């Protein structure tokens, strides 16, 4: 089941040399611990890049993106099993 959200979200992460480790998501007064990044890809909004991530928690896949122009993280949709 997929739920479209499209809302701003807070993200706790560690940025290394060319790598990102997402620790947890803060959304809707909830802290969602992230197990791992299952997929990442980049799109372009004109000349500006947008970084997309799919991260897994124990019960769902969270599709989020970071817009470096707006310095904003957004939760796009939640994918759940079943």
């Amino acid at each position: 089941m997929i739920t479209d959200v499209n809302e701003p979200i807070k993200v706790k992460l560690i940025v290394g040399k060319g790598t990102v480790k997402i620790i947890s998501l803060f959304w809707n007064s909830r802290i969602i611990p992230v197990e791992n990044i299952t997929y990442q890809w980049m799109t372009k909004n004109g000349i500006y890049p947008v970084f997309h991530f799919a991260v897994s928690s124990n019960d769902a896949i969270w599709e989020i993106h970071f817009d470096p122009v707006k310095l904003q993280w957004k939760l796009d949709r939640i994918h759940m099993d079943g």
Partner: protein
Amino acid sequence: MIIHVDMDAFFASVEQTFNPFLRGKPVFVSGNTARDSVIAACSYEAKKYGVKSGMSIVEGLNMCPGAIIVRGNPEKYIDTSQRIFNVLKTFTEKVELYSIDEGFLEINPENMRHENLMRLGLSIKNAINKETSLTCSIGISCNKTVAKIASDLCKPDGIMIVNESEIREFMKTLPVEKVPGIGPKMAEQLNLMGIEFCGQIEKIPLSLLKKKFGVRGEQVWYLCHGMGETKVRIQSPEPKSFGHSYTLRNDTDDINIILSVLCRLSHQVGMRMRQESYYGNVVTVAVRYSDFTACSKRKTYPFWFNDDQTIFRYASSLIFTESIMKKIRLLGVSVSGIHKRYQMNLFRDEKRERMLKAMDAINEKYGNDTVFPCMMLYEQIAYPPVTKTHAFMFSDLKKISSGQFTGAQEKQV
């Protein structure tokens, strides 16, 4: 030597990697999750039930009732494809992008020993898997035709090497429909002639096939003998046409929606032509109706153009020559008769050219569809998008050029 790299069930594998809940399950990837949409790709778990790309979702569900339908995300696939081709370019500069999920590599004859080729194939597979977590199949031979057949036969996640001396034996028992370039209709014609396997074509003289099928017959004869190009094409050939098509979210006979979609397609075609500095003078409109019958109309004009409005004007005039009696499912607009230069039009609209230039500059910087003709809004009102869209009016362009415009007005349309 030629190496053909073909990703295994590409779109479906990307979705299964992206969402681990889908792993091990039959998955259909489609542009639209409606039941009358077409399956763009399916996972190997679905293929086991006989499901194939191009089938409608209803057909697919009849064969594989438990399948999960996933809406495809082209941007995700394009980015993944670019990463795959970047990996391939670390092995050789001679890489041909054959499609979004397959490519040919040309390698030096010094790597021609079997064990070296096998090692190289494994290295390519490992490098792609490390970058994307996806698997691919690899065919290696002395030409593109046999390399492609080999990669197809060793799917999924295999490597097959066919040396030059083995090609004749390899082709002998290969069904003709397995050869790339021989479609179902040609295969049927060949079967009627008693040719089911490539080896059987040896009994048929080339002149007979040429007489029966013309140039295609000659091509088929060479293909069935395992002959093909031995060099990769690094530069993409000159385009013959620019076109876009769109399957409507719901079949419709609402002329406003039809015109709105035609306007968007004309805008997309025009923008791409201007980006690559091409002009064309033939407009074609393709229509597919809800009952899957199709028609197309084309007209040649005595001058060359690449602006959205002209393309839209001609496309809409062509569609009005067709009496729309049934609901429309798909619309397509293309421009052909392509030239890099064009004969100067004495009556050119310089003001409009400047406006298009400004519009293209904005769209290039801030993303496609930042500025677009208002007519395109009608389709978005009829089918509201889930996400927000930035909509500008043409009048805003003046404010942008004079510095009065303060920012994008985000509107829910």
